[in-house]
C-alpha cells in the first residue's frame, strides 16, 4: 500500500485535533500520577536530581563541585530555569511540574509518527499505543531527564526525516538541519551516554537502510533518493559523534568521570555503544531481572502488569521479521521510504537493546541497562502501520477485532498505569508516605539533632523528606535500609508496619523499646540502653 493509500478514507479530523487528543491522553496520565499520591511521594532518582538542581542554583555554576549529575547538565539547567522564572521551589518542580511536563513528549512523538505512519490518525493511534507502555510511563512519571531525553530523540528523528524530504527546498532544509543538530546537542546535554548510543543506533539504521535499498531491483530502487539518504545519514552520524566527543572531553568534563568508573574497555565500550548508563559506584547497578520476584507481590502480578511490553515486543518483532523476509527475499518491495526508515530504525534499536541485555549479564557491575524505552518509541509506529493496513475479510470481523482491541487497550492502560506508579497494592517498592511520618521527622529534627533516626527499609522517607523540604539539610541524620551503627531511634508508622508485613521483615526494634514520640499513626521508638555507654 502506498503512502497515499494509508490515508483514511472517511472524513478525517483536523491534525490539530488529533494532536490535542494525544495531549489529552498524556494529561490524563499525568493527572492520575498527581492525584494518586497527592505529591506525597519520594523516589531515589528524583531526589538525586533535586540535589543536583539545588546545587546548581546555590553554587551558580554549571558544573558544581559536588552533587552534580555526571552524565549531563540539561535537566538541571531546565529545572533551574523553571524554578527561577516561576519562583517555585525545587521540591515543587520535581513532584508536580516534572509530572505535568511529561506531556511535552507528545508533540514530537506525534509528529514523528505522522511521518512514519503517514496520517494524523495513525500518529494519534501510535501515540495512544505509546502511552500504554509501562516502562515509558514510568520514566515520564519521575523528576529525571528521561522524559526530555526520549522526547528530544523523537524530535530529532522527526527533524531528520523531514530534512530528508526537503532537499529540494534549501532554506527549509537548512533550517531543519540546524534544528536537528541543536536537538542532538540537547540530547547530549541531557545525557551524553544515551545520546551516543542513540547516534550509533542511527548509524546502525543507516547500514540497515543501505542493505534494504541495495537488495531491491534497480527498477524499484529510487537510486538517487537512496544515495542521498545513505549519504545524509552517514554525515549526520559522524557529526553527532563529534559532538558527543567534544561534550565528554571538552565541554562537560564530569562525563569523563562516569567513563573512568568503568574500568574495563568492555564496560566503556558498552556505555558508549549500547543503551546502558554508568552508575557511580561499582555494584550499585540493580539487576532488574533478579528483583522481579522481590519487587512485586508475585511473579504473576508482574507479568500481568507488563503485559503491554510483551505484546508490543511480540507483535513488533513478528512484523519486523515478516518485513525482513519479504523484502529480503524480493517478494515484496518496501511500500515507501518511510517504511524502510521505520524498519531500519526499529531494527537498529532492537539490536542495540538485545546487545544491552547481553552486556548487562556478561559485564554487569557498573552498568544499568535501560530496558525498553528507546525500543518502544519505534515499535509502536511499526504496529500502528500494521493495524491501519490490516484488511480483514469482512467489515464485521474488523469491527469485532477493533472492539476487542479497544477493550484490551483500556485494560492495558490500567495495568501499565499501575506498574508505572508502583501501585502499593501490587508493588513491594512503595514510594508514597503519610504526612504523619514527615511530622515525626520534623519533631526529630529538633529533638534528635546530630543523632541517627531509622526511617524505613529503603530510601522512601529519605527521598520524600528531601523533596518536601526542597532538599534542605536536616539536623537529624536519616537512616534507611540496614540500621547504621549508633542509630538508636526508629520511626515506626502504620505504613512501615504494613510494609514490613508485606516484605516479611521484622521491625528493627526490640520488645522493650520506649516510645518517645507518638502522633497516632507514627511513633518514634528509642532502644533501651544495654551498656553504660549507650544513651
Amino acid at each position, binding site marked *: 500500500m502506498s503512502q497515499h493509500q494509508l490515508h483514511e478514507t472517511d472524513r478525517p479530523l483536523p491534525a490539530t485535533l488529533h494532536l490535542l487528543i494525544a495531549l489529552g491522553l498524556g494529561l490524563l496520565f499525568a493527572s492520575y500520577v498527581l492525584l494518586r499520591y497527592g505529591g506525597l511521594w519520594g523516589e531515589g532518582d528524583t531526589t538525586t536530581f533535586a540535589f543536583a538542581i539545588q546545587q546548581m542554583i546555590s553554587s551558580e555554576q554549571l558544573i558544581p563541585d559536588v552533587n552534580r549529575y555526571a552524565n549531563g547538565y540539561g535537566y538541571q539547567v531546565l529545572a533551574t530555569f523553571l524554578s527561577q522564572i516561576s519562583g517555585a521551589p525545587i521540591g515543587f518542580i520535581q513532584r508536580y511540574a516534572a509530572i505535568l511536563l511529561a506531556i511535552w513528549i507528545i508533540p514530537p512523538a506525534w509528529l514523528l509518527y505522522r511521518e512514519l505512519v503517514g496520517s494524523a490518525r495513525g500518529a494519534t493511534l501510535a501515540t495512544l499505543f505509546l502511552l500504554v507502555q509501562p516502562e515509558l510511563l514510568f520514566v515520564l512519571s519521575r523528576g529525571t531527564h528521561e522524559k526530555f531525553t526520549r522526547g528530544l530523540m523523537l524530535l530529532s528523528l522527526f527533524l531528520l526525516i523531514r530534512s530528508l524530504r526537503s532537499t529540494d527546498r534549501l532554506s527549509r532544509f537548512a533550517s531543519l538541519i540546524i534544528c536537528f543538530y541543536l536537538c542532538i546537542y540537547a540530547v547530549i546535554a541531557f545525557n551524553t551516554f544515551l545520546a551516543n548510543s542513540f547516534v550509533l543506533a542511527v548509524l546502525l539504521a543507516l547500514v540497515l537502510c543501505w542493505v534494504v535499498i541495495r537488495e531491491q531491483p534497480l527498477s524499484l530502487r529510487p537510486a538517487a533518493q537512496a544515495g542521498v539518504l545513505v549519504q545524509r545519514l552517514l554525515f549526520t552520524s559522524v557529526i553527532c559523534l563529534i559532538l558527543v566527543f567534544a561534550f565528554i572531553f571538552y565541554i562537560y568534563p564530569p562525563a569523563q568521570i562516569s567513563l573512568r568508573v568503568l574500568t574495563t574497555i568492555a564496560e566503556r565500550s558498552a556505555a558508549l555503544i549500547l543503551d546502558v548508563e554508568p552508575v557511580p559506584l561499582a555494584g550499585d547497578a540493580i539487576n532488574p531481572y533478579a528483583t522481579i520476584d522481590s519487587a512485586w507481590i508475585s511473579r504473576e502480578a508482574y507479568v500481568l502488569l507488563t503485559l503491554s511490553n510483551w505484546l508490543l515486543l511480540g507483535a513488533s518483532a513478528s512484523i519486523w521479521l515478516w518485513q525482513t523476509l519479504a523484502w529480503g527475499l524480493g517478494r515484496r518491495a518496501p511500500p515507501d521510504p518511510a517504511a524502510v526508515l521505520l524498519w531500519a530504525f526499529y531494527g537498529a534499536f532492537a539490536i542495540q537493546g538485545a546487545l544491552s541485555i547481553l552486556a548487562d549479564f556478561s559485564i554487569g557491575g557498573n552498568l544499568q541497562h535501560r530496558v525498553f524505552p528507546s525500543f518502544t518509541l519505534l515499535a509502536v509506529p511499526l504496529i500502528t502501520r500494521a493495524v491501519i493496513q490490516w484488511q480483514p475479510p*469482512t467489515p464485521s470481523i*474488523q469491527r469485532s477485532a477493533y472492539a476487542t*482491541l479497544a477493550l484490551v487497550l483500556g485494560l492495558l492502560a490500567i495495568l501499565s498505569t499501575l506498574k508505572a506508579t508502583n501501585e502499593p*497494592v501490587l508493588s513491594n517498592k512503595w514510594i508514597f508516605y503519610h504526612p504523619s511520618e514527615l511530622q515525626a521527622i520534623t519533631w526529630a529534627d529538633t529533638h534528635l539533632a546530630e543523632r541517627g533516626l531509622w526511617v524505613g527499609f529503603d530510601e522512601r522517607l529519605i527521598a520524600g523528606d528531601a523533596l518536601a523540604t526542597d532538599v534542605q539539610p536536616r539536623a537529624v541524620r536519616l537512616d534507611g535500609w540496614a540500621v547504621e*551503627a549508633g542509630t538508636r531511634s526508629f520511626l515506626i508508622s502504620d505504613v512501615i508496619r*504494613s510494609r514490613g*508485613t508485606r516484605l516479611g521483615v521484622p521491625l528493627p526494634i*526490640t520488645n522493650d523499646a520506649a516510645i518517645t514520640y507518638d502522633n497516632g499513626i507514627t511513633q518514634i521508638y528509642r532502644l533501651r540502653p544495654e*551498656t*553504660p555507654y549507650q544513651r
Partner: protein
Amino acid sequence: MQRWFLIGLLLLAVHLTPAAAHAELSAEGMTLLGIRQQDTTGAGRPNVTIIDAAFATERDQVRVYDRGQNMVASDDWRIATDFTDDVWVFDVGADGTAQLIITFQQTDEGLVAELWDDRTGDGRVLHQIEPTLELLDSPFPTVRVLARDGWWQRADRSNFNLHLTVDGPVRASFAAPAFLEFLRHDGEPDFTITVRDTTNSGRPDWQWVDAWPKAPETSGPARLEAIQNVADDEYPITGSIFWYLLGSGEQYNKDYLISPPPIKMDWTTGRLAIVGEFVASRFNDDVWFMYSQYRPTPAEAGPASFESPFGFYDLAQDNDGYPELQVRMVANPPRNLYITGSNDSWTQQIRYSWDQANTTTWDYKLELFGQHPIETITHLPDFAVQMIAYEQLPQWVVEREWSIDFVAVENTDLPYWTSEGIYETPTDTRQMLDYNLGNSAERPRRSVDLPVGMRHESTDLEQTYQPYLYFSPIDGKLHLRHATQGAWDLGDARALYYANLNGDAYLDQWLWLQNTGDADNYRTISRQLNVTDAHLIYSDSAVEQVQLRAVAVPPSLFETLPPTNHAEWQQLGSQLAQHQRDLDPHDLRAKFNQFAGDTLTLNGARLRDFRFTDAGGFRFVLTALPHFSPRGADAALFAGLAPGEYLVAYTDQLQITPLPPPDLTLTLHLAAQGDTLSRLAPRGIELSNAEIADANGLTLYVEAQQGEQRVPVLEQRVGVHGMDQQWVALDWQPTQLGAWTIVARLFDQDQQQVAQTQQTVTLGANAATAPAHILHLSSNTRVWWQAPVLLLVIGGVIALIFSRLAPPARPTEHTP
C-alpha cells in the same frame, strides 16, 4: 725561564687535572673519589666543579654550576662550591644524565633550595644549563626548602628553622601511604612541613606536617602530624650526600640513636621518595607526637583526633635514648567524622606501657577505654589544639576511671621491645570502640589467645575504675584491681586462668589446666586454688586430692597506680624488689603451702563448681571416689562418705549434703494471641532450678514453628544456680499470621536435653496488608476508592478514543 715555565705548566696541569682517584673516606653518605673544575666561560676562574663520588653506585658524579660568579678554585668541594646560589646536578652512574637537580638561591623570603627529580618516568631530569638554566621535566620543583634565616649550616650547627613544601607522590608524612594515589605533581603543595629549632641549639625540636591530599575529607588518614623533642636532644644528622638534608633510604621514621638525612632520594628511579622525620617521633625517650585527622588552624583551637598525643617518657632519667614509659592516647572527639557511629561524647582508648626494670623490655601494659571530656587547650608553635598536653598525660590518665585490660610480659627469655609499647591486648579494640561509642551492645570479644608468656587480666565492661594494681601474696605478681578474669598461656597446652568470683577488687581463683593425650585418649588435668576470707582451697585432679586450709590471707601486699614520673617508677621498682618471689606459675600447691593453718586433706576426691554464696561463704561440689579418705581438721565430717557427689558449703562452718542433679523447668511467658503482626509485647522464658545443685554450661534453644517452617528465635548459653531462677528475654516478631508454636529446649554440656516447653500463639487477621488499608494509607484523600475510580476513567477513555480512531471498516469489493 724555561725551567719556570715547565714548573708553571706542571702546577697548572696538577690544578686542572682530576685529583688522583683515591677514595676519600667520609662520615657522610657517600665516598669521594675526586674533584676537578672547569672554566667554561673563559673568565679566568672556575664556574663548574665536577665531583666524582659514590653515593648510589660505585661511580657517580655531581656537577656543580656556579650561578653567583663566586666559585673558587679548590680541591675541597666544601670550599669550591656553595649551597647559596649554585646548581647541583646529581648524575648516578656518571653517564651524563641527571637524576636529581638542586637549585639554591637567595630570595626575599630567605635561602631556598628546590629539588627537581624525574617527573616523566624516564629516570632522568631533562635540563639545560647553558645559556640559561632550564628544567624541562616539570615547571615545579618536587620539594622546596626555605630557610628564612638565610643559611643552612654554620661552623658549629645546622639550621633547623625550615619550611618545606612537597608536591607529588612523595611520602612526606607517616600516613601518606594511605593517600599516595591522590597526590599529584601539579604545582599545588601536597604537604607543608615546618621544622623549628626553638632553642637555637642546632637541633630540631619541633616538626609538623600538614597533608593536603585531594582525597575525600572524611577519609581516615591523619592530615596533621606534629612532633616535639622535649629534651631537645636530637642526634646530629649523619649520612648526608653533600647537602646536609639529602640522603638515601627507604624508611620514613628515624630509628634509635641515629638521625639520617630526612630528604631521601631513590636513585634507581630518579625520584624523591621520602621527606622523613627531622624530629624522631618514637625513637627517643622524651618525645611525643600527634597524628590528627582533624586539622586545627591558627584561628581555631579545634579538637585533635586519633593519636593525640602519643608520648614517650624517660622515667629512669638516664637519657639513654630509650623511653621507660609510653602513653598512647587515641582520642575521638564528639561527632567525629572519621568514626562511623560517633556520638556526642569524647571517647578515648589508651595504651600505657612501661619498662619497669629499665632493660629495654616492656614489662607491663594497661589498655584503657573510657569517655572523658577533653577541654584542655594545648598551645603549640603556630596553632593550638584541644588535647591533653604531653607533660600532663600520664597523670591525667591515672586520675580517671576506665574499663581496663592489663598485660604483663612474663616471658623473660625473649625481650619484648617495640617502638610503640605492648601491642597485644585481650579485648578486640574495634569491637571495644563500637561498644564504647554505644554503637553496639555486643560485648567485645575477650581473647585468651595472647602469645605465650603474656599474662593478661580485664575488668568488667560495665564498670570503670582507676587503674590501680596490687601485689598478690598468693603468686607474688602485680595484678589489676577489680579484674574479673585473666589468663596466661604457659605454652605446651598449659594455661593459667584467673577469676574474681565474689566481685570484690581481687582475684580469688587460680585455675591451671593442661590438655594431654591424643584424640583417642584426651584428658584435661586441672589444679585449682581458691582464696576466701578465711580459707585456701586447693584441688588437683591428677592426684585426686582436695585440701582446705583455714588461713586468712591478705588480698594484697601493696597497691599502686602505674608510675607517671621518675619517683613513682623508682618506688614501684623498690616495692617489687622487696616483695617479688620467683614462684613457678605451674605449681599452685607451692602457692598454697606458703601459708600455714589447720588443713583438711581429702584424698580420692575431686572438686568442681566452686563459688561464693550470698551469705558470705562458699560452696563447691565434691566428688568422693571409691578410695575417698579424709584426714586432718574436720575430717570427721567427711568420714564414711559413700562414693558420689556432695555439696560442701561453708558459712560459719562446713556442711556436707548429698547432691541431687539439678531440677530444671522452663516456662514461656507469651501472649496467647494477637491481632496484629508487628505490635510488640514483652516476651521471655523463665528458667528454674528446684534443686541445690548448680546447672552451668547449659544451652537454651528457642524456635518458632508454623507448619513446616522453622524460625530460630534464640540460642544462648545460660546457667542457673541451685534453688534459683533466671529470666531470658525473647525478642521475636512473627512475620506471618496464623498459629505459631514456640518451642524452647534446654541442653546440658553433653548436648542432652534436660528441659522443654512450648506454647502456641495465634495471630489473627489484621488490616496491615489488606488492599483497602493500603489504598487508604496511600491515598492523599484517605479515600480508598479514589485510585480504582481514576483507573477506570483512564481505561475507559483509552478504549473510547481507540474505538473512535480505529480505521473504519472498508466495504467489501464485489467482482462482477
